[in-house]
């Protein structure tokens, strides 16, 4: 039977290590060649792929930037409506500490809102998946809550909780919660029924089955839900600040608008977008670390073909 292993190895895909001899598998426990090798070439090709993906949007952005610059410098629109990039940059550097303080406030609200939404959303998804009764009771309410325009209840939240941290966090949670629930439910339901059967014949309890089988299976779905949620959490925090606040980027935006300070307004907008982009990237990195095995995240070639 040992030669069977050798037969198998003859079918290995070797085109990713062209110079090497066909890998052999010996009984002493040699590892399959080509598994995790060639990090250098892989990193190189990844960089190339990134550049390939980026040059078109980069070009478009550069064109828009040039158009903005041109229009603002020539004052086709007055500078109190459309500032020049230079003015925005000047504001950014002059008011740096002021802007950073307010960015920190908004970031703080967003992160707390997002984390709470993730935890509550996942918990709700687990309840919905594990209990038929709760599914019938909770799911329609979650759906119904989603069609209420959350932005419309922001003033009410401010009336209830004041102008502090709470209404912003609540609003961020309310907005970010839904995609987490939906993706969590879809993910937890995606478990192979045969694996659940298997788990039952292994005598494993529900907690062990959840931990070792269902939850890891749900992660790819869940992570896409979290990516949507994190960008929505920013919206929640900023809208909360619009309605009633004494600090935060949303508040600064209102002040800048009231003073017709377009440069500050633009600087503020950039920082808001930056929060969204950075948080999205953080979730993206978390995804890469958590589910490197998933089809969506691997570019490799299978070891064996036959």
């Amino acid at each position, binding site marked *: 039977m040992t030669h069977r292993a050798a037969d198998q190895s003859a079918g290995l895909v070797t085109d990713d290590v062209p110079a090497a001899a066909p890998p052999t598998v010996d009984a002493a426990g040699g590892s399959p060649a080509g598994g995790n090798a060639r990090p250098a070439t892989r990193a190189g090709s990844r960089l190339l792929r990134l550049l390939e993906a980026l040059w078109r949007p980069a070009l478009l952005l550069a064109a828009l930037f040039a158009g903005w610059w041109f229009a603002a410098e020539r004052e086709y629109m007055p500078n109190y409506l459309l500032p020049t990039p230079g003015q925005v940059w000047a504001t950014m550097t002059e008011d740096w500490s002021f802007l950073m303080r307010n960015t920190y406030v908004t970031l703080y609200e967003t992160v707390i809102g997002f984390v709470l939404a993730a935890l509550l959303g996942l918990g709700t998804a687990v309840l919905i998946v594990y209990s038929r009764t709760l599914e019938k009771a909770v799911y329609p309410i979650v759906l119904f809550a989603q069609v209420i325009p959350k932005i419309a209840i922001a003033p009410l939240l401010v009336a209830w909780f004041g102008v502090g941290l709470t209404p912003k966090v609540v609003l961020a949670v309310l907005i970010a919660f839904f995609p987490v629930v939906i993706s969590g439910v879809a993910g937890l339901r995606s478990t*192979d029924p045969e694996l659940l059967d298997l788990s039952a014949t292994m005598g494993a309890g529900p907690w062990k089955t959840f931990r*070792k089988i269902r939850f890891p299976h749900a992660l790819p779905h869940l992570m896409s839900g979290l990516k949507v949620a994190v960008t929505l959490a920013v919206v929640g925090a900023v809208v909360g600040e619009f309605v009633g606040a004494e600090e935060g980027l949303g508040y600064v935006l209102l002040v800048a608008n009231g003073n017709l300070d377009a440069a500050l307004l633009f600087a503020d907008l950039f920082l808001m977008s930056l929060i969204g982009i950075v948080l999205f990237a953080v979730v993206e990195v978390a995804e890469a670390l958590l589910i490197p095995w998933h089809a969506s995240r691997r570019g490799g070639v299978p070891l064996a073909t036959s």
Partner: protein
Amino acid sequence: MSTATPTLTGAAVDLTDLTVRFQSKRSRTTAVTDVSLRVDPGEFVTIVGPSGCGKSTLLKIVAGLVAPTSGTVSLLGRPVRRPQQDIGFVFQRPALLEWRSVRRNILLQAEMRGLDRSVAARRADELIALTGLTGFEKALPHELSGGMQQRVALCRALLHQPPVLLMDEPFGALDALTREQLNTELNRIWRDTGTTVLLVTHSIAEAVFLGTRVEVMSPRPGRIVRTFPVDIPPERDYAQVMSDARFDRLATQIRRLLGAGANH
């Protein structure tokens, strides 16, 4: 709990007058009807029949995953009422955990059961060597061929040395050559371990090659229409068995029976 051949004098698997009906909103289907089947310790019983005749349902009943509408089921002399743990189960699809290496997929069985780690690890290494997976311990399922994935599933099912192994068309999704290889390997593993095997297939050749006894089922509602003892010695070589006159005769008889709609 896990001697390969139970010391019981009774049957490993005993099904009596089994009927299973599935009730959906509009209709009621009878999956299997009046099935009685006894499998003695150490036997390799294969069940062959057309698609949808309830073969898989029978295995799930033995495993305690589906309750019969009427009739009795017992495994190793005990009535089956809930999911059974004295079994190994292999499905048509490997059903491996994508994020676990070959070795850790096999060890899932030990983790879920809370078995001793070092014993399980040693046993896993034995099985890896036995099934020719040596060198692929750290590979992830997606890096393996279908045949190798199914070998991993087989190792996982054997890790706790179950007295009874249930196999639901385990090689149905594989190409013919890989299937022959795995049939030969399964024959050897069965002889080595002495495990009782109940295997469901729709391949007549596979049923005769592997079985010490072949049970032929009719189309839905499934019934066992005939039993064929296979009088070929247990140690079997694929090429030899295929050219054996006894194999031909049996395969032809079964094919006729199934071709005739198996209505008698």
